[in-house]
């Protein structure tokens, strides 16, 4: 039973280990690009970095690391201007996600359960379908008002 999932676990562990190792090796630079070096280092990684010209050419200031703004002067974007429509979609989805999970055990035994549970499930499904109909009728799903 559990042995069926060992391979999935191995895939996950191998992949995450490989990615972490990859990103610790690959050059990823931050303030090194514009801050002056203050000391001479004889550590192996530092020597490799100097040899590979990794921090060259140095840039003048920290504008190198500002958020991308298509050439404008960047400002920090405060994420409090989110359109209200996304919340409506999210609420509808939350309703249905729980619904789906409850329906899978019914579908697993569909043939043996027979006719009456089928009708009951249809009534159960009709309630969220009515919610979607209501959201469209009251124009909550209209983005351009």
């Amino acid at each position, binding site marked *: *039973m559990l042995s069926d999932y060992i391979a999935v676990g191995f895939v996950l562990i191998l992949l995450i280990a490989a990615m972490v190792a990859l990103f610790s090796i690959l050059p990823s630079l931050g303030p090194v690009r514009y801050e002056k070096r203050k000391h001479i280092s004889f550590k192996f990684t530092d020597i490799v970095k100097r040899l590979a010209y990794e921090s060259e050419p140095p840039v003048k200031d920290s504008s190198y*690391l500002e958020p*991308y703004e298509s050439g404008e002067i960047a400002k920090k*974007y405060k994420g409090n201007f989110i359109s209200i429509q996304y919340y409506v*979609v999210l609420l509808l989805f939350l309703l249905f996600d729980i619904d789906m999970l409850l329906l899978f055990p019914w*579908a697993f035994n569909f043939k043996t359960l027979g006719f009456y549970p089928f009708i009951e499930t249809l009534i159960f499904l009709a309630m969220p379908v009515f919610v979607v109909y209501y959201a469209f009728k009251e124009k909550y799903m209209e983005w351009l008002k």
Partner: protein
Amino acid sequence: MSLLARTYNIFSFLGYYADTFLTYLIDSIIFLLAAAIAIILTIYFFRKYMARVQLRIGPNRVGKFGTLQLIADALKLMGKESILPKERDDFPYKVAPILVFAGLMVAFSLLPFGSFFWVGNVVISNSEVGIILLFAVLAIMPIGEMLAGISSHNKYALTGALRSVAKDISFEVPMMISVLAIVVMASARTPSSLTIGSVVSTEILPYGILQPLGLFVFYIAMIARASYTPFDMGESESELVSGYSTEYSGMRFGLFYVGMFGSILLGSFIISLFYLGGYNGPYEWNLGLIYLLIKTVIVVVISFTVWLSMPRIRIDKFVNLGWKYLFPISVFNLVLAGFLTLYLGW
């Protein structure tokens, strides 16, 4: 015999525990390499196919017919520095691309791939509730996109992440109801109707013929999940610079790029497993993997043709498409599948 059993026999002199460990380790590595090669081949094929559609030649300098172009691109991406912007939230910014890629690969490892000549059954995991687990794992990739968009503190990235999450969750519901219809039909034929392998083995007549509406809805949902052109408002180049991956560069961007093509390939595999008969075919020569690959390549070509020939649609029209049309169609498909199973015994 299967791939696991053959590997187990090779290392059987080591005793039970070491043998089991080595078997699963080596098979996982083989599987990861195969999946990576398949994704690289998909990207190469896409670049050649796009060039042909747009009356160009495509990559033809590196290697014969440009076959080594993708390796050159991967080396270039690795050599580039990845710029870490100043305003980022550090941990989620670094985790996001790994999460997208890991979700994709774990979803690949849950699929059954049929049998292949003398190797036998090429499957490394066999879950009893594979369908639920597969769609649960597929829900990891939007989390990575969301983390990427929010943690980079850029307005393009945030807008792109909001759009792509709205896209993903409004097409999740029709997709799941279509899958529910398949489980309903499979429950009449097999006692374990939540295992992917046994669902595929019941497809003497493929479910795509029995449920054409379900195939239609599921195919559109998989296109939306892979987020390419008719539904790529999450990273629309002309308005948002490149969506949630705006602030990423180097190999971190490369992982998002690979994740997109990988989800096209994964969606094609899932469609050909659930709706086109999977690894079932006319002859019993252990050709299951070949049949599956042929069906998958056909679905991939159709997907690329859709990608290259459709304009992008607006986000509100898109969300309305999901909730207004595809959702009622999928519910109707579920009712139809229930009546067919109960009364006609199909």
